[in-house]
């Protein structure tokens, strides 16, 4: 046990006490923050709060001054809502547009009540919010003779919140909340962890094999202690990364929430999904780590091992590329099969859980499948290590390594 621990500590120190590790630690939260930042930046560019004009030739707009309640609703929905200015003629509106007093103007033709045809005129594409607000503005004026609360509800419509049958999941019309996306982020961080640690795992085995240290090591340490120590060391490195990422993410969420970014206000999440995600992620991680160890010990060089590891990572990403398909049919046979399979199970369940509720039996079956595959892969890693050592100096074919019958006969 002492030797196993010493191997783990040695591998941990060798990888963590390096500048490049800091880069790896910070890269994932930075990439995540960057993607969210780009999304928010692009979204902010879609809004424009400059004035918008209108020319009403049909006599629809009778109430151009709006109540504070309506202004407040627009303020909540659009952050910086536009103000509408009436122009008596199109020429005056055009002049205002060319002088950039207004970002666009709407022309309501005389035959509007027959055709409901409206013309939007602009120099540069106006913000999307102007269309939405003008739509509300028209609706308010079309029912202006109704009581205020009725006119308000007609204009601002009905907000549909999709609810699960057991009333534990809610998806508002405006899109998923940060809390409902959290389980998917946990899945993605495990994927990031697998990708980041795969390099360490392969090199942990391949490097000592390449420089012939391995043969000296196994004269004083058992195979189990060496492999176990290396896996433990990598798990510790991964834990360091996971804890750091979690701290950075929580600081980010806390700051965003304090800054008043509305998307980060609702952080409630369904803990059943979080638990099921972790239950699948842990064995899935062990499975990949053990396989990487096997590949690292069998690969003739670190480079060859790395290229083989890429294939496992591609399998993990497949469910992400099938995201739109899963959104439409989250319980299709393909989705269920991918949820049960090694490598794809982690992301398939994660993506499906985001769009729908995965039945408990499928989650349990996936957990069981991942655990079985993880145990098989640990056994396989030890077999591979022994097999490669016995074949000292000979180049190994991958087919030979994966022929379990031969390895089992050792």
């Amino acid at each position, binding site marked *: 046990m002492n030797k196993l621990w010493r191997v783990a500590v040695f591998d941990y120190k060798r990888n963590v006490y390096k500048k490049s590790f800091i880069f790896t630690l910070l890269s994932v939260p930075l990439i995540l923050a960057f993607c969210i930042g780009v999304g928010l930046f692009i979204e902010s560019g879609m809004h424009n709060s400059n004035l918008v004009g209108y020319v009403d030739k049909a006599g629809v707009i009778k109430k151009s001054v709006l109540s504070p309640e309506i202004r407040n609703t627009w303020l909540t929905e659009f952050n910086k809502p536009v103000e509408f200015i009436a122009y008596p003629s199109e020429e005056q509106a055009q002049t205002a547009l060319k002088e950039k007093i207004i970002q666009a103007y709407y022309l309501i033709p005389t035959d509007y009540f027959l055709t409901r045809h*409206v013309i939007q005129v602009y120099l540069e594409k106006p913000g999307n919010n102007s269309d939405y607000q003008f739509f509300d503005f028209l609706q308010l004026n079309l029912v202006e003779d109704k009581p205020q609360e009725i006119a308000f509800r007609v204009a601002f419509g009905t907000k549909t919140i999709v609810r699960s*049958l057991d009333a534990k999941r*809610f998806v508002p019309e405006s899109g998923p909340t940060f809390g409902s996306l959290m389980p998917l982020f946990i899945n993605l961080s495990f994927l990031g962890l697998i990708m980041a640690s795969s390099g360490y795992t392969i090199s942990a085995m391949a490097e000592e094999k390449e420089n012939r240290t391995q043969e000296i090591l196994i004269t004083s340490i058992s195979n189990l202690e060496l492999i176990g120590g290396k896996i433990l060391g990598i798990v510790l490195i991964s834990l360091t990364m996971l804890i750091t990422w979690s701290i950075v993410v929580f600081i980010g969420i806390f700051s965003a929430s304090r800054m008043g970014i509305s998307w980060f206000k609702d952080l409630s999440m369904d803990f059943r999904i979080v638990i099921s995600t972790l239950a699948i992620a842990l064995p899935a991680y062990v499975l990949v780590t053990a396989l990487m160890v096997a590949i690292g010990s069998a690969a003739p060089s670190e480079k060859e091992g790395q290229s083989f590891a890429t294939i496992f990572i591609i399998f993990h990403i497949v469910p992400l590329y099938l995201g739109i398909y899963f959104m439409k049919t989250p319980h299709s046979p393909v989705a269920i099969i991918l949820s049960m399979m090694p490598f794809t199970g982690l992301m398939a369940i994660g993506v499906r859980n985001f769009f729908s509720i995965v039945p408990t039996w499928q989650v349990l079956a996936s957990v069981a499948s991942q655990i079985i595959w993880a145990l098989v892969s640990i056994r396989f890693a030890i077999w591979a290590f022994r097999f490669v050592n016995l074949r000292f100096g000979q180049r190994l074919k991958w087919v030979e390594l994966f022929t379990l019958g031969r390895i089992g006969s050792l």
Partner: protein
Amino acid sequence: MKKIFLVMRREIVNTFHSRLYVFFAFILPVLVVLIVGAVKLIQSRSTSAIENENAVSSTYPQLNYEGIIDQSGFVQFIPEEFQNYLRLYSDEDHAKKDLQSGRISAYYIIPADYLDMGEIYYVYPNEKSFMIDGQSWVMSKTLMFNLLDADLTLLDMPWNPIRYLEKRTFSPQPLTNGFQGEDCSRPGASCVSNDLVRYMPSIMVALFFVTFMTSSNKLFDNVHTEKENRTIEVVLLSISPKQLLAGKILGLGLTGFLQTAVWLGSFFISFNLGGMALNLPHNFEFPIHILIWGLIYFVGGFSLYANLMAGSGALVQKMKEAGIVNYIILAPLFLGYIFGLIAPLSDTSNSPILIFLSIFPFTSPLVMIMRMTDGIVPLWQLISSVVLLFLTAYITLNTVASMFHAQNLLSGQPFSLKRYVRVMLGR
């Protein structure tokens, strides 16, 4: 020239010996086309049956039967057009029972505070995706009908106050994608009703990103391996660094180019011939000019990033450092990828920052392809972007070739960004 050709030939032969390359470059795209063709064949045989079914369907063939639990007491009337699709329940338990037995496909809960809050709950069976809109518009229209005291003549006006929004611009250049309303004859955000056509610009960005990544990584590996096993030192005795680099870039570029061309060709065949199999609109055509410009951008983008990766491959001492080095060198490409992926989804592909990124040489190979697929790009932007890209690629070829000297190849120093930039600048 002969030496460049020899290096190039060797790289091509080596790449074609890789089973992984053959699979991804030739077998997979052919499989895609075959699958699309097979689906189309099956669908064409069943079309007549579907047409017959549609002929006997009712006014709203797609509508499902749904329930309402009205806790507000607000729903007094159901419009005549929906009376066969909506059913009132006294409590949720009954609705839940009917939902589980399949008698209704979903139900709505109208809370007591509906008029103040305007929120209703839409309950699906667990098998259905939460992100699918369903037919909540039926309930919204029913609620508006009740808000307007069941006045059917008044309902239509506020329900749909704009039937047709015509857009006019005084701008000298088309700053939007150049199309009015829904247009599914070409890819881009102007097609709202078909997801595949709408998201095609993002698909193109992803394809180019993967191709650049794999091809330039291959060059990095290639240079680094030859450096590690000392072949490069021997080779450089009889060939100039520029010839070696040019040969490698041409060889690997051609194989990457072939891979992209095969994939683009399979996209072209699948999208144009397999329209029905992929549920593409009848008038949809994948523009041929995107393919031509796509290949030009591939050559420029690949040359630029291959040069940069070859340079870093020459400076990296251990394969372990490769991951971080790749991150640093490919960071601008990643930036272009993220912007290129998100912009068409949010209909902002012609915003100033995207225009800048489509001209900036380190991001233009991805962002310009996205913009071209999404809409019309002014010719001056295209030309300036291509000129800048090829100019930058040429400059990097010269600077990276200067890295292939013994003092860099044999220095044994670990890779650092500072050293990389210093060597690139010839200091």
